[in-house]
């Protein structure tokens, strides 16, 4: 039965599978007018909102996937469905080969979930006590616990935090401690909902480096949501963009850039007053600097450089790709229309 064997191998490689998943919410509508009060009591108007609309998605084991979208696009809903917190209205969900609503307890032993705005730490206890709590509640074997504790303590620089009360941690420290807590049972798959929200540059950097490392070295599958596209680009190899409950894009960040053309930016610094560049759109200008945007598909870099060479007094040129934030913002605007 080679066909079946192959199918099993393929299935074994899948960490997450969403098959035509729809999640609908009912919203009560109110006009706020006195004349509608009675009607609202007897026959309230309801609106069905699709947070997810026929979404199909597969994440293979070992992947690092960014799951992004505008506010209300359905990101958190997806994470909650995958974690077994919510059930889909329609469609099939499989996480590590298990159905979350049927095998919640078993699944929770194998996955980790962190919601950036929430903490699992015991507020009035040192971090180490929360870690011990996790060991007992998750039933983590001693050798796994010691190994993971050593890893997270080193990689997340938790040494000094272990004996600190959770209530005394800064947001960045708390997030690091929460991440450490989440990883103590050595999950195969982790879901992170806005893990970098509110973190300063250093804390964000530590977190990103850590996540990349456990994905690379331990092969942990990671699905992360964030509004910060630059963070996502730095972390993930693949981006899934949601719009109005549907997958609007699924691919690499480079492929995403190509969607809006190959936008580049050139920043020119002049010795004296700025001079105009005939190609490209002017984005900003000061007395000695100017920044232009151009599409390399329309105006090749060679052509732009030739135009720059014609200008007098250019002392510095900086060419870079347009920030991913801008690309995504442009796509959100397009999808809204």
């Amino acid at each position, binding site marked *: 039965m080679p066909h079946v064997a192959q199918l099993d191998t393929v299935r074994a490689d899948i960490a997450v599978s969403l098959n035509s998943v729809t999640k609908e919410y009912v919203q009560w509508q109110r006009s706020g007018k006195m004349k509608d009060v009675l009607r609202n009591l007897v026959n309230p108007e309801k609106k069905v909102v699709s947070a997810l609309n026929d979404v199909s998605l597969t994440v293979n084991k070992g992947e690092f996937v960014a799951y992004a979208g505008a506010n209300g696009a359905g990101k958190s809903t997806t994470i909650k469905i995958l974690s077994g917190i919510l059930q889909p209205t329609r469609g099939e969900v499989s996480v590590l080969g298990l159905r979350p609503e049927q095998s919640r307890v078993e*699944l929770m032993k194998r996955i980790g979930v962190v919601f950036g705005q929430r903490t699992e730490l015991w507020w009035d206890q040192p971090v180490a006590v929360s870690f011990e*709590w996790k060991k*007992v509640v998750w039933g983590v074997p001693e050798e796994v616990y010691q190994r993971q504790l050593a890893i997270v303590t080193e990689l997340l620089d938790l040494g000094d935090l272990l004996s600190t009360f959770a209530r005394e941690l800064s947001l960045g420290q708390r997030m690091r401690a929460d991440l450490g807590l989440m990883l103590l049972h050595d999950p195969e798959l982790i879901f992170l909902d806005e893990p970098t929200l509110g973190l300063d540059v250093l804390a964000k950097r530590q977190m990103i480096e850590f996540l990349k490392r456990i994905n690379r070295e331990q092969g942990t599958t990671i699905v992360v949501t964030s509004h910060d596209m630059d963070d996502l680009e730095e972390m993930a190899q693949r981006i899934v963009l949601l719009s109005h409950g549907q997958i609007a894009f699924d691919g690499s960040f480079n492929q995403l850039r190509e969607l809006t053309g190959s936008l580049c930016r050139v920043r020119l610094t002049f010795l004296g007053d700025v001079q105009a560049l005939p190609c490209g759109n002017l984005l900003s200008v000061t007395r000695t600097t100017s920044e232009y945007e151009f599409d390399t598909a329309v105006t090749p870099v060679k052509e732009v450089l030739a135009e720059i060479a014609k200008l007098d007094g250019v002392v510095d040129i900086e060419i870079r790709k347009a920030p991913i934030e801008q690309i995504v913002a442009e796509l959100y605007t397009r999808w809204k229309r």
Partner: protein
Amino acid sequence: MVANIKRIFQLWGIYAKLDLLWFLRDTKYCVAAIVSDIVTNLSALAGVFLLAERFGNIGGMSSDQVLFMLGYACVVDGVILMFFSMNNVAWISRLIGRGQLEHRVTQPVPLWMQLLTEGFIPVSGNSMLLCGLGITWYALSRLATSVGSLWVLSFLFSVGCSVAIILSFSYIFGSIAFYAQVAGEEISTTAIGLFGALKTFPIGGLSLAAKTVLCTIVPVGLAAWFPANVLLGQAPQSLPQALLLIMTITLALAAATMFRKGMKHYATRGSIRYSARGHRR
């Protein structure tokens, strides 16, 4: 079954440890907690003895019998405080209304087991239970009731039933928070408060209809009055002796059904709000 019991004791163990560490986290906090517990319990004790004196010979109960009933009520409250008060487990509408059930469903433990173990605070939450046991012992020493091992078992069984009735009542009403998270957040507080306000009255002198209502629809009579009288060997003639057991099973089933329906609603609709308040001590 054995594995579940072992797991329950394992979880109780870690929560007991957390409670001990919390209680001893700071000398000032520890002393303040002990002093405030002493003050609270002394005033509760004074209240109990005053009530016993006031209610003596009302509803067919002597002062000592009323004292026993009040001791029983304190034991019931003490068990709830010791086993179910941490993280608002007894006040379930707070967990539901604040969107905090999501913290529970991401743990690899069946929800019933979490709710049974998570509220355990044997160190910081034992004072009411100790006071209740003290009052009960004092009242028994003044009564002619013969206390043997069977009586002790009946006592423990009755306390368990009364606790289950109060919690079931809290969960039945608390399940409303699944459908109205903001408005229903404190409904369990009101439900448990009803028992706090009414369970210490000797209702034996009321009409049969009133007693029936207070032992079935609003079962405050089952939290102390009815079981205390049964244990004292003067079971109310007008009500069946098995009423406590019947009502415990009925209310527990109703609570389980309501809660399960609410959880289905929660899994379908999700939570419209999240508040970290009271989530972790």
